[in-house]
């Protein structure tokens, strides 16, 4: 095994350009599990953890830019994130354990592309943007476009996540929700994880709904069909029930060791129902 250490973004870009087969390493919480079972034997590792430039949270005029190496612990402590992006703060505080939150990074969470990534539903409803860098130059991707399939991203070879940018929701939503459903309350991979934002018009009709679910498809899903359906309508019991029914068009839950497809669909519908009824 070869261990390359980058100290600056430029050095990381150069090293990854020279060694496109290298495996980037951030907080190592996912990578070490792979290493311990021998899956990294003989590989080249590109350690990013000494790049201070990617450890900052920048407060911009219309958005917040979170460096890819910012940890889940730092995210949940950050006053602006807690105030303006409480769904993300909440997701970060429910990842793994205190110990995992202290090492695990937001960039690693995204690049890992687990269907159960807990930060994904919040980032999906906040319309996050992913900034990347490589020897070809920088790129900006819409958050949902980053994921190709279970554990597969659309990042190019030699491409690194530099930061996650989230625009301030404007106006402030009327309702918001984050829920993680697992077998126990801590240290658990989600069976279903959900985030929602809702804006209302003055006449009590829906202005805009954004609702995203994790663990119910190969990648995180926005409920585009249900979101479009409720727009402009009052949230009567019939409307809410119909939205919950057509949700099945947007997701494709599976049976696995943690749960069944039927259970996941039911829970997802309950989550949307409780959010819309509140």
């Amino acid at each position, binding site marked *: *095994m070869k*261990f390359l*250490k980058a100290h600056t973004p430029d050095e990381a870009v150069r090293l990854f350009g020279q060694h496109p087969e290298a495996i980037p*390493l951030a907080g*190592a*919480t996912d990578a*070490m*599990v792979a*290493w*311990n079972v021998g899956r*990294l034997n003989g590989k080249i*590792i590109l*350690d990013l*953890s*000494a790049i201070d430039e990617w450890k900052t949270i920048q407060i911009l005029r219309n958005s917040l830019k979170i460096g890819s190496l910012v940890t889940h*612990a730092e995210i*949940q*402590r950050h006053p602006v994130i*807690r105030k303006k992006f*409480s769904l993300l*703060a*909440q997701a970060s*505080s429910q990842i*793994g*354990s*205190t*110990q*995992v939150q*202290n*090492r695990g990074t937001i960039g690693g969470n995204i690049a890992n592309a687990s269907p159960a990534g807990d930060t994904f539903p919040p980032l999906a409803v906040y319309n996050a943007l992913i900034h990347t860098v490589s020897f070809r130059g920088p790129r900006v991707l819409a958050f949902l476009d980053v994921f190709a399939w279970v554990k597969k991203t659309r990042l190019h070879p030699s491409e690194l996540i530099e930061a996650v940018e989230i625009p301030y929701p404007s106006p*402030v*939503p*009327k*309702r*918001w*929700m*984050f*829920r993680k459903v697992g077998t126990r*309350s*801590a*240290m658990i991979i989600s069976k279903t994880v959900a985030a929602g934002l809702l804006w209302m018009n003055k006449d009590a009709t829906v202005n805009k709904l954004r609702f995203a679910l994790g663990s119910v498809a190969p990648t995180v899903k926005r409920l585009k069909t249900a979101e479009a359906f409720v727009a402009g309508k009052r949230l009567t019991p019939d409307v809410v029930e119909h939205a919950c029914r057509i949700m099945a068009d947007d997701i494709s839950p599976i049976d696995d060791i943690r749960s069944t497809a039927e259970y996941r669909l039911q829970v997802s519908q309950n989550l949307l129902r409780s*959010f819309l009824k*509140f």
Partner: protein
Amino acid sequence: MVVKFVVNSKKRAYKGPPFKRLIDVLRDDFGLTGTKEGCGEGECGACTVLIDGQPVNSCLVPVGQVENCKVETVESLGSSAELHILQKAFLEEGSAQCGFCTPGMLMTSLAWIRNGGSDKSQEIREYLAGNLCRCTGYQHIINAVIGAVREYKKAKARRKGLFLPSPRVSGERAG
């Protein structure tokens, strides 16, 4: 590769493969066997040590990442002649049976009390959720931490700033 870092206030230089796990370096290279390995995959917390004051699973940290860091292990707590507040509380409460989880429990609890954590049972349980115990049923451990927090706050001026309670799950704006 040579990695220089500080362990329990002592400067150390490790020489060897950079991907060796911190837990193995502590135990095998430095003879600090207080840190235990339960699962080796970040689930049990038995291997918890502090890096720059924050609890982490030493089974998930490659030593190449701790260059210039400050590592604290359970050996940095009190001696049998002079116990740390936490060790005393664990003893008095009977918080250990087999004792395998204890070093990890102590280190996570140490970060909790130093970071100004509260004496609220629910908050302590959440913070310690990554430390599993097969023997005690947790109540005696939580009681010990509650006691230690109160002792610590009495003994020292409260250190503020690092900890904030978790935010609300959901909400609704008035109007």
